[in-house]
């Protein structure tokens, strides 16, 4: 079982394929990937397209018989309407998590509306994925700060600190409600994270879909070639993602 926990329905894909995921799914097939967490793209760079993008992601996922797991996004800048959008996506569209990108979306993790969203995600029992590894709004330690403030909410560091912030991601994992997604660090950092973080809170992803570039071959090869115990690799590639989904 391989589950890619970090993919996007990229704007270039939407422009070319509309709501048809068949070519996108063919890429998963080519690499034996069973399921993928699907996040939006347009709704994370254009506030006025947020709701429509959530609808699109939910609609596409519904065509795949559960293979694609839809993840919503929302904007703290929208105030109460942003919080309501989180509820709508989870309760009415059946979306399974929230993805936020403070760097792209331009908000601070100290934003009080973001706090409301994180609290609601905890109530609704869905994980909150964050872009991480990037100053000044998306550092792993800033997400860990949210995890301290909202202990009932599960947070996923979408990039495990990327290339230069992975030590902070490792520190962030001291919070029991922080998970990391291996999608960005170099191989040695991945090995260290698997060795020193809780192996039950590590998942894997590719960031596939932001463009047409094939990031799957590389990132799947990277995790497969990493020097980590097979039992841990099995968890990271699929078992943990199923648990994350059930939380």
């Amino acid at each position: 079982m391989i589950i890619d926990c970090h993919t996007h329905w990229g704007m270039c894909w939407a422009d070319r394929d509309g709501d048809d995921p068949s070519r996108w799914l063919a890429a998963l097939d080519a690499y034996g990937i069973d399921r993928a967490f699907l996040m939006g793209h347009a709704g994370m760079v254009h506030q006025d397209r947020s709701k429509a993008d959530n609808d699109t992601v939910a609609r596409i996922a519904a065509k795949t018989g559960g293979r694609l797991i839809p993840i919503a996004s929302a904007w703290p800048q929208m105030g109460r309407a942003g919080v309501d959008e989180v509820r709508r996506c989870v309760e009415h569209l059946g979306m399974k998590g929230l993805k936020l990108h403070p760097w792209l979306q331009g908000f601070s993790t100290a934003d009080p509306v973001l706090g409301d969203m994180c609290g609601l995600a905890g109530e609704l029992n869905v994980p909150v994925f964050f872009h991480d590894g990037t100053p000044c709004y998306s550092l792993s330690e800033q997400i860990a700060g949210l995890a301290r403030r909202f202990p009932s909410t599960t947070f996923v560091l979408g990039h495990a600190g990327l290339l230069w912030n992975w030590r902070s991601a490792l520190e962030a994992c001291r919070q029991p409600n922080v998970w990391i997604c291996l999608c960005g660090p170099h191989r040695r950092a991945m090995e260290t994270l698997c060795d020193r973080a809780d192996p039950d809170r590590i998942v894997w992803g590719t960031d596939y879909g932001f463009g047409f570039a094939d990031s799957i071959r590389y990132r799947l090869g990277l995790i497969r070639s990493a020097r980590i115990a097979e039992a841990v690799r099995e968890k990271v590639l699929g078992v943990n993602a199923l648990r994350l989904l059930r939380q």
Partner: protein
Amino acid sequence: MNVDGYVTLGVDREYDLTEADLLRAMDSAQVDSAVIAPVDRCLAVHNREGNDLILRAAAAHPTRFIPSCSVNPWYGRSAVQEIERSRSEGARILVLHPFVQGFQANDELVWPLLDSIAQQPMPVYVHTGTPGNATPWQIVDLAERYPSVDFIMGHCGATDFWNDVIPAARCVRNVHLESSLARPFLFVAYVEELGADRGIMGSCAPLDDLAFEWEQMRRVLPAEQWPGVYGGNLCRLLEKGSAP
């Protein structure tokens, strides 16, 4: 001729690459030679210790290893002297790592080092990608101030500065792009846009696996670009440094 543009040799903290292991990896990936650089601790503080280790390894394997040297610019005049000493003993590239060495890439702190390099050229490899102190546009600042010096933008600003790489590199001709950590599936777009004479293949072993990185790059880089990216471009820069 396949040349790996950046490898860290040594055993320290997350580094565990011995000479024998590196040679084995190079053989398995059909890599003829590799630029070797010291581990982070030696980049940051124990410059001479790291440079000596690199120089000794290169002396033992002169056809396989291309020795770099590194100095922390905070050491001031003694840093310049260490460059000159290392160069006299065979070092062929200067490595700067603003993140590890604790300075801003375009800080005037680094000018005395580059003044020395400008007198007797050798390429300057700068690790990039960390916000605030190692960005593509900071390398452009250096390249404009020192137009006779060839700069290698290590990691192409990965991850966050991928947007800046192409516009920054277009502004100056004396900046080359090194691929490690930038991921092959993204690096090919830079080379496509800027020209195959600007790209340099590097693995950043052992942080990433040398053989894996070469295998992945060979899958995506067009074959007509291989001669330059896989060694020709770097060798051209090195030859400038060794010209009488």
